[in-house]
């Protein structure tokens, strides 16, 4: 027995559906092209918004790796006391690494930086003016301000320094970009769905006689729906394909140019991340097309 109301139709009917979808696209070729262009533009914007977000995250993670808190100990703290403080710093939430830099090592580092030939030590008169220092690293930039504040409260700490301001700015920029990215993605996605829905509405209208006859001779609802769904999905997919090609070419060029001119700016070039993006865009284009079709079919086909 034939199962009634099944979503699927026979494979041979899929052939009919594809033929009808292509015929319909060809008949409304300008509208189909306009919809594809909208999907392409929408998904290109979406792709770049996403790349922007990914790159700020990448930038943040690169900078986070270099971010550290310098904790200067008071001069009166003895070496034993100083070493005991290590556990106190390690207990601060978010702190992953605590490195003790005794003042002798600090001076050595300083000497190295000035060059072996410099007579820094002589000038200072064998007196080491540097304090003992703890270098703290955190899981991410968001933890730096609180960790720094916590370190300030520990007995024996003279001063705490980190890239204050810079961290906060970086953080707020990332959050802002992510928010803008999400809003752009939603707005652009809505626009694409709306345009595909309009195209399918026109198609439904152009084919209303066919649909009426199909219903009369006893076609199932899904047999009637499939060509429209396919049409929306093909439009969405081709639009997405254009977007992917556009992003691929432009981003490659951008990476090349940045490497040549502002090479200190880190840029994300992870191949698998990019391939994921392209796949996601193609899937999204197809899904947007199906959604647009579904809206129009529901509103104008009454099935």
């Amino acid at each position: 027995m034939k199962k009634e109301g099944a979503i699927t139709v026979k494979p041979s009917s899929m052939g009919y559906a594809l033929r009808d979808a292509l015929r319909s696209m060809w008949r409304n070729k300008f509208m189909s092209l306009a919809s594809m262009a909208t999907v392409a533009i929408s998904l290109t914007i979406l792709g770049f918004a996403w790349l922007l977000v990914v790159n700020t995250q990448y930038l943040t993670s690169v900078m986070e790796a270099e971010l550290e808190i310098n904790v200067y100990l008071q001069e009166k703290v003895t070496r034993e006391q100083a070493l005991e403080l290590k556990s106190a710093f390690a207990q601060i939430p978010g702190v992953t690494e605590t490195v003790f830099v005794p003042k002798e090592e600090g001076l050595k580092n300083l000497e190295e930086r000035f060059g072996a030939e410099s007579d820094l030590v002589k000038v200072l008169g064998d007196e080491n003016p540097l304090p003992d220092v703890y270098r703290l690293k955190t899981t991410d930039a968001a933890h730096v301000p609180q960790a720094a504040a916590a370190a300030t409260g520990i007995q024996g700490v003279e001063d705490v320094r980190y890239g204050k301001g810079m961290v906060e700015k970086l953080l707020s920029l990332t959050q802002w970009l992510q928010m803008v990215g999400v809003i752009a993605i939603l707005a652009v996605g809505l626009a694409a769905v709306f345009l595909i829905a309009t195209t399918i509405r026109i198609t439904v209208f152009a084919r209303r006689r066919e649909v009426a006859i199909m219903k009369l001779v006893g076609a199932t609802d899904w047999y009637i729906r499939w060509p429209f769904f396919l049409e929306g999905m093909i439009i969405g997919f081709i639009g997405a394909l254009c977007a992917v090609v556009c992003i691929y070419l432009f981003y490659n060029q951008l990476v090349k140019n940045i490497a040549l001119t502002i090479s200190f700016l880190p840029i994300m070039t992870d191949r698998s991340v990019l391939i994921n993006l392209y796949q996601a865009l193609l899937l999204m284009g197809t899904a947007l097309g199906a959604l647009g079709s579904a809206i129009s079919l529901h509103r104008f086909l009454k099935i």
Partner: protein
Amino acid sequence: MTYDEEVKVTALSDINLHIKRGEFVFIVGPSGAGKSTLARLMIREELPTKGQIMIGGKSLLRMRNREIPYVRRKIGFIFQDSRLLMDRTVYENVAFAMEALEMPRNHVKSRVPAVLEMVGLKDKIDSYPHQLSGGQQQRVCIARAVINDPLIIIADEPTGNLDPDTSWEIMSILSAINKRGTTIVTVTHDREMVDRMKRRVIALEKGRIVRDEERGGYHSET
């Protein structure tokens, strides 16, 4: 498996009608008598506010939406305005009805020409509807109605726009289809035709059955 080929209609204006399998029935009456409404009720394009309609022992009222296609597959339709797709050839118009029932392509390819030959349109297979006369268009419509082997054919004014000779040709084709066992219900106000065919006549007036005669004429003989 048996399929009880009976149509029983009890509609709005106190109509009680029973059509047997294999019958050829004319529904006649003045404009506005409810002839077309009756036809539309039979194909479930409309539902009665009260009463029951059964086809082959199955109620058209107590039926899920998704079951409707399967009832309609048992019924073929012919309309006065033929309702052909103007941008498709004769072949495509008839094949369309088979494709809608998800028939495989090779089956469609062999069956469509055979049915077109039966209605005498074999040489017009690649013509477009606008290249055909009214009678020829109506024959395409008949081919489309019988292509899926329906048990019943409902024809709403099938000869409404045609001259008497052409009308007679169309009726002959319907008669031939009826001889093979298909029930035919024809809505018409073509008096000559009805008188000549000598079939069961159901006359409607103001939404009521005023006459139901076997082998009757357009007007009562008494």
